[in-house]
């Protein structure tokens, strides 16, 4: 019995001459939130489609919950819930009717769907709105309905394609709390769950896994593990803290004025590898072991050039700093 819920080995998908996915290997454990992070066109969506068996890989193997995606695609799909960026719902139907529709499409029987739907609506916080028309829901509630629809079959693997595009931080926060709760408690949904489409749930192995794709670092930082994708490849993979720690002590934050002068001064310093401008400050990446040296000389340099330094300090690296550093190679 494998420890991984999802195992993909050396996946490739070529469209004519385009290498959309070019040698991706993925191992996702039960209870893990894995982030596929990269820009549009990096290969995130193609990877997701390969995982659900909607596309055939040019090379490589995938198993989901122990099923071979190439040979047992039906079994695989019965284990997967998918929330796409533009999931569709019937605006004229009520919340409960929408869930019922998804449940019946996925083959749930009359006796099964209602109690299960109510459990899930309770979980996402829509139980009080079960009779409201979907078209009358706020953006955040629509998103929760989408999540509920994806969860109605009690999938072991939840795929979320840029799930919080277009929603405000409060809603996004709520959504993430749900996702984290979903993976951290095996008994979150079904209390009477000895049998779920033939797959027994038990302790650790019974936890749901989530794979989420996003171009945004603030979302990536909420995942347990992150794979940075570029040109169809995963160029780095680890927990956000480990990825960030690679640059520990090497990111300085500089605030002062005028920003242009600060930027030019920082660029000139030979121990500075990179300067990134933000609205009211700069992030400066320095060579290994050079932060103290830069802290001393850069301030002097700026003042003698007629600029002003309000603050220059070492800050904890952000995932964005790591992504940019990695992209240079």
């Amino acid at each position: 019995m494998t420890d991984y819920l999802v195992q993909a080995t050396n996946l490739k998908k070529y469209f004519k001459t385009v290498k959309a996915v070019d040698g991706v290997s993925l191992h996702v454990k039960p209870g893990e939130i894995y982030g596929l992070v990269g820009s549009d066109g990096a290969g995130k969506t193609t990877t997701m489609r390969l995982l659900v068996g909607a596309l055939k890989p040019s090379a490589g193997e995938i198993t989901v919950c122990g099923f071979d995606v190439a040979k047992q695609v039906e079994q695989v799909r019965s284990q997967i819930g998918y929330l796409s960026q533009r999931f569709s719902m019937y605006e004229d139907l009520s919340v409960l009717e929408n869930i019922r529709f998804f449940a019946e499409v996925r083959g749930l029987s009359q006796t099964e769907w209602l109690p299960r739907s109510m459990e899930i609506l309770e979980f996402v916080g829509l139980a009080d709105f079960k009779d409201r028309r979907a078209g009358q829901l706020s953006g955040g509630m629509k998103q929760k309905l989408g999540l509920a629809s994806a969860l109605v079959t009690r999938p072991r693997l939840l795929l979320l394609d840029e799930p919080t595009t277009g929603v405000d931080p409060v809603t996004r926060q709520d959504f993430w709390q749900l996702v984290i709760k979903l993976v951290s408690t095996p008994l979150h949904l079904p209390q009477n769950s000895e049998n779920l489409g033939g797959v027994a749930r038990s302790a650790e192995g019974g936890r749901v896994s989530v794979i989420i794709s996003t171009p945004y670092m603030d979302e990536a930082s909420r995942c347990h593990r992150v794979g940075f994708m570029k040109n169809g490849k995963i160029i780095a993979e680890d927990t956000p803290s480990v990825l960030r720690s690679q640059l520990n002590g090497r990111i300085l934050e500089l605030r002062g004025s005028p920003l242009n002068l600060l930027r030019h001064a920082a660029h000139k310093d030979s121990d500075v590898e990179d300067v990134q401008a933000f609205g009211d400050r700069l992030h400066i990446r320095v060579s290994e072991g050079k932060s103290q040296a830069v802290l001393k000389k850069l301030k002097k340099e700026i003042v003698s050039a007629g600029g002003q330094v309000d603050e220059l300090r070492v800050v904890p690296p952000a995932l964005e700093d790591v992504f940019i550093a990695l992209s240079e190679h």
Partner: protein
Amino acid sequence: METVIKVENLTRKFGDFVAVDHINFEVNAGEVVGYLGPNGSGKTTTIRMLLGLLAPSEGQATVLGYDVHRQSEEVRARVGYMSQKFAIYDDLTALENLTFYGGVYGIKDRARILHTLELVGLKGHEQTLTRDMSTGWRQRLSLGIALVHEPKLLFLDEPTSGVDPTARRAFWDLIYELAENGVTIFVTTHYMDEAEYCERVGVMRDGKLLAMDTPTNLKRTVIKGDVWEVFAHPLEQGLEILHDMDGVERVGLAGDHLRVISSKVKKTAMQSLLSKAGLSVEKIERGEPTLEDVFLALAR
């Protein structure tokens, strides 16, 4: 300093619904200002009023010295607008797209059009079909289209959504260059990542402008407490305990740890409370406040 946008008590009602509710702010020449808020918070209604496409119900606004309502044509001739939803013709090359949109503004000067392409970093790609371009390149072409008539003020609507940090950064380097040359930039967005690139950020919610300041000042003034990252197991239980702890202002799940904001609580106090409850505490570290923390604090 020259005031480019001046908004006074600007209000727009649709029936009983107040989409924009008595907002006030000013933007100076060469500033890069963000307007951050969720969909439906009143961002687009504000922009439509600033572009003279929608009459205010109350209050007034001037853009580049022109009254947006009474002199809207003067305004529109002098500002650029870039949106993700803006149509770029897929079957046309970069140059053809720009020539087409230049024509809309009455610009036929080929040198100007080529210069604009160069400005947005697409020199050498004049003949590339737009459909073969990456998202990052298409965004630059959209920027070129918004710039071809050399506006003094540029409105950007979520200009870098969907791209990774390297592409976003290349785009913003262009924006800073424009600002250095005196162009004023006004960015509407609901992405925190994008707002971080602005010199000042206004936070919109339910039609109200809750605050407008530099990201650093917003973080300092709105988030009065310290930010802690708490790595403890089980996470759920830690969430409940810290939520009920005296002096904790906010606690949330953040993947593999908890994010706690508090001005009173000490690291050791959290440590001992969690340990006493039987949790294993791996580490508790200082975190940095984010614009998301600011938004959550203002919104609740």
